[in-house]
């Protein structure tokens, strides 16, 4: 699933950073899992708006995953304030896993 953005290059760097954030149960990073929906940069207000989801709304690992996403983005873009939003519309499903992710899982 592609990530919606207003800045392709900065978004790509941000996504690279998020490849180090894993869902601990599945062992796959949040990007290949398809959890990241949007990454928009507000250059004037120095804000990074990131929208993501979880595999299930009350995912027991949710707090840990979102915290790690926030920390990874903050470390990559220290001059920006990170605004991380969770959405469940659309809800995550298995078709959102990338080809790399599927191959990691053995499919």
């Amino acid at each position, binding site marked *: 699933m592609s990530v919606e953005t207003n800045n392709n290059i900065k978004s790509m760097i941000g996504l690279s950073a998020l490849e180090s954030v894993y869902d601990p*149960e599945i062992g796959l990073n949040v990007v290949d899992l398809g959890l990241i929906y949007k990454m928009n940069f507000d250059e004037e207000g120095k804000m990074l708006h990131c929208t993501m989801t979880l595999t299930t709304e*009350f995912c027991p690992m949710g*707090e840990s995953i979102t915290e790690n996403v926030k920390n990874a983005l903050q470390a990559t873009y220290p001059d920006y304030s990170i605004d991380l939003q*969770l959405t469940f519309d659309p809800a995550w499903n*298995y078709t959102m896993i990338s080809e790399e992710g599927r191959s990691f899982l*053995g499919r």
Partner: protein
Amino acid sequence: MFPGQAGSDLTKTTSYKVVLPFYVYAAFSFLVSAVLLFLSSPAFLNHYFQPHILAITHLMTLGWGTMIILGASHQLVPVFIEGRLYSNTLGYTSFVLAAIGIPLLVYGFYVFNMGEPSKWGGRFVVLAILAYLINLGITISRSKKENIHALFVFTSMVWLFLTALLGLALVYNFTTNLLPRDSVHYLPLHVHAGLIGWFLLLIIGVASRLIPMFLISKYHNVRLLKWIYFLINGALIFYVLEFYFIRNTEYLLLSWLALFSGILLFMYYCYSAYRQRIRKQVDEPMKISLLSVFMILLPAIFLLITIIMISVFARENTAISLSYGFLILFGWITAIILGMTFKTLPFIVWNRVYHNRSRTGKTPNPKDLFNTSVFRIMSIFYLTGLVVFVAGCLTGILIFIKAGSALILISSILYVYNVMKVLTHKPAIA
């Protein structure tokens, strides 16, 4: 569109402080049960209605099976219904009441004193279950949408409460004439309301969600689960009606058929989830959990044999009845708990230890929190012990029963070792 902020209440789950005491209690109950099983081996050559067997049965069903399910469901039910646990306090209350009540009840059975220890034990257990029923009942009732898994869990909780109430009545019936007939007469009702109504429904409700989730399977079939729900509840309700009103043992076969159909459909559900999994590699705890699904078959067949014997010969074979109970408690229920413990507990502990640690350093995966080799050895000892013990029960050879119980005892020690290893895990990074 954006129902919550990251790190807000939306991502808050049940506190580990509510859940972990149940896991610890259950682990040690399994160990103590295995010790009692080993020490009481000769009892398994005789009738099942004996103090030591009753004590082991109640420690296994309440201390082991029920306690771990109570703990896990405080964590998992909010995940299923995508809501929050109604009350942590009721969770603690439930634990404390059960933790006091179970040893009293087990002690009462062990020394066969149906006086105050058993009565107080029974009262505490009923109150613990009532607290759990209220807590999870309100949690489920707040669910925004229809959820078949929650329906299974809620119905199983009602059966658990009824089982416990009947159990308490049976304890009283030993010393006062509370019921029209003696307690042994009502024992099958108490046993099957607990095993089928509580354990089977609960395990199907939870496993039908967890197994596809852990396998990362696309398979989900609500229609099939509804069929399973009606078949199993129908079987149990018909059994209760037969027990009280019809009194024709041949009708028991109808109940059995409905039950067996429900079990077969559940196996088909799990098999389909397995076939349609995205994650190709299946880890050790999942293997034993999947195996447990198929382990229900054996006691179901033993139950059929018992029903046929009662219908034809008007008497049961105690070796088969004992093996039937043993295969449920130490077989199917224990196998799924052994597997699912290491699919849930490491995550709860991992979340506690690492939830606010950025991935600036290397953090272990939850599966690294327990020793996989020990788990594998535990599984081998456990499965071998199970087969040898049942062979001993069926053939009446004591040395097999002794050897089987010794192997199960070793597996319980390895299980406790791994549970404690997870619970005492310290972060490896600064």
